[in-house]
């Protein structure tokens, strides 16, 4: 269930801004693993199919397994030398750094997938509309054209296929035709955009300063989510500044601190990453209850 979608755009923007800051800037492998786990849990709880999750996981595993050795080839720092290749040291620390970086990249990528699943153009238009209503109007007009261009591209390509232009043709000819189709569709879209500009004028565009009147509403759960976001951000900032969530890879891999405080901060971060999955689970439970009451 896409329960995160129902949050107010500002809530979502705040959450994702903090999330990406933690996921990308933390050096701590534990935080990185928690971020990846949170992202996968969010997708799973959000209703992604098993096949989709398997594809993402397979891609993730490959990336992580590639990053470890690649980092060893490039960097030779670290105290624990595993073996030498042409005289260069391959160290356990460099390998760990590579794996950790791989986890960070995959975690960020999975969060990006979740972000696209849970946000729409209305969020962007709403956020921009408050500050730059003109720019938001241009963006929304552009967003309208993208699916139209794709649709027309497919339609025109199908029309060419139906008159047999591709019959027995090699890749190069197909590519030439496809390029021509793309060019003609783009050119016609520009022509159509002129008609649209005409309609915009008829509907008063440019007469006065535009306002943005989105239907998105601020609810109680937005306040709760924003407070949780602030808590997550504060915990992470405190952990980084105090060094409790720090981690050094070279010369030897070690946590900044192994203490109850550090564990508590890591726990807060874990909960922060789990918020989308928990929201989805909450949505599911509410749905089940509502469904049962009807049957």
């Amino acid at each position: 269930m896409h329960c995160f979608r129902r949050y107010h755009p500002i809530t979502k923007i705040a959450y994702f801004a903090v999330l990406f800051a933690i996921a990308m800037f933390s050096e701590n492998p534990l935080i990185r693993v928690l971020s990846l786990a949170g992202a996968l849990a969010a997708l799973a709880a959000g209703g992604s199919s098993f096949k989709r999750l398997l594809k993402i996981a397979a891609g993730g595993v490959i990336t992580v397994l590639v990053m470890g050795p690649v980092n060893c080839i490039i960097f030779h720092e670290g105290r624990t030398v595993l073996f030498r290749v042409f005289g260069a040291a391959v160290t356990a620390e460099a390998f760990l750094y590579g794996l950790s970086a791989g986890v960070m990249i995959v975690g960020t990528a999975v969060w990006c997938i979740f972000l696209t699943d849970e946000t729409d153009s209305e969020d962007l238009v709403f956020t921009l509309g408050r500050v730059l209503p003109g720019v938001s109007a241009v963006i929304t007009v552009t967003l309208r054209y993208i699916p139209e261009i794709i649709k027309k591209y497919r339609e025109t390509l199908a029309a060419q296929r139906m008159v047999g232009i591709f019959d027995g043709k090699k890749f190069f000819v197909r590519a030439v035709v496809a390029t021509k189709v793309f060019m003609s569709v783009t050119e016609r879209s520009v022509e159509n955009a002129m008609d649209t500009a005409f309609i915009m004028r008829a509907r008063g565009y440019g007469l006065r300063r535009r306002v943005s009147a989105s239907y998105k509403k601020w609810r109680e759960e937005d306040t709760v989510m924003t407070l949780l976001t602030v808590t997550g951000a504060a915990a992470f900032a405190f952990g980084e500044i105090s060094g409790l969530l720090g981690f050094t890879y070279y010369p030897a891999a070690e946590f900044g601190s192994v203490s109850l405080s550090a564990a508590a901060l890591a726990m807060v971060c874990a909960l922060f990453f789990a918020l989308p999955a928990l929201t989805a689970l909450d949505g599911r439970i509410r749905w089940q209850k509502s469904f049962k009451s009807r049957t």
Partner: protein
Amino acid sequence: MAKKLQIKDLNFKYALGDRYVLRGIDLELDAGEKVLLSGISGSGKSTLLKVISPMTSPRGGRSGSVLIDGTDVRDMPRLDITSKVAYVAQNPENGIVVDTVYGELAFCCENIGMNREEVRRRVAWTASYFGIEDILKRKISELSGGQKQIVSLAAAIMLKPEILLLDEPTTYLDPIQAVRFLDLVDNLNRDFGMTVIVAEHRVESFAGRFDRVVKIEEGVLLDMDVRTSFNETDMFYERVFALNDGAVNTGDPAVSVKNLEFRYAKDGPNVLDGANVDIPKGSIYALLGANGCGKTTFLRCLTCELKPQRGNVKIRSQCAAMTQNPLSMFIEETPEKDYRFFLKQKGFKKEEADARISEVAEKLELTEDILKTNVLDLSGGETERAAMAKLLLAGADVLLFDEPTKGLDSAAKAKLTGIMKELAERGITIIFVTHDVGFALSTADRAGVLSAGSILE
């Protein structure tokens, strides 16, 4: 009392044109009057509608005046004109500005800086009035053509205009959608006393709905007395099936379809469910049916674009198809350039290509002018014929058309009928799917109705 709209001796020519497209137009409309503006393609209908408001007027030279409630529109503040006159374009694809239904409805109000709560109230009311509450949060790209045109109309009336101008609003709609759309226009006229002008070339079908019918011919306005209502569905079953009575099957069919089954979703219902048909060589076959019954799917199965799950299709010669949008047949600027590129890909030398183009152009009455004109500047009928030429250049003996009369006026339709009949006489088999019962009756020599996945003859 001043008339709601007065057009006095209006003349207009486009900035790049040398002739007047509107000449001495005089028209007066009372508040709440509903007028049908008829005329063939290129007669000046769209230009007249656009010239009424300075907000929609194209660039060019004009004389004469347009008055709303006795005030010349050129002396009115732009905001007043925007609020008083609403315009709905012919093609819903271009008449919609933003990417969501809600955004489209709010667009007008946002442009004039209306209070946010008032915008929300107006959107809610309009969505409820037009019955589009269920699609309010949907993306425009997910809507059908009919829904888009209704959204376009709803967005245009957000500022509660007094005059509503509609430029061939039903051209891209099927008959059922067209009737629903015009019902909504009737409601606006009845409930809010809006003065309505609808440019439309299907006079016979819609004249009965209007207080007055005027005709524009080469830029000159004439009064018409056409009030006959022509209900196409009345004669549907009686005459469509009668087409097959006199038909004779000779020899092997050019197209033979046996037990065709097709569905889009694995567990979904069959769109085509055992469709059978034999179409003789040199015949014109019309396939009719309700919206979404699978006519286009049937055509796509014939072209092998869709692979049926069961059954088979046998076409004994080369076949080529034209989609609903004839413009999609062209990937070059002009028809001539497109034909040359196409024939080059087909392996023809320049001289052979020239000869073929001349032969086909003559057959389809495509003049040198048409061949060298940008495809976007051709009329509906010219685009249709130019696209048809591409099918013939493909060397096809079986031509398939999906809604060939979409957007065509009666003159263009009559020409298309003539050309199809001539091609059939030369042994070319033509199959078209259509909503246009009148065209099917006047053009086809046999017909079928697709219903519940089967073809009834």
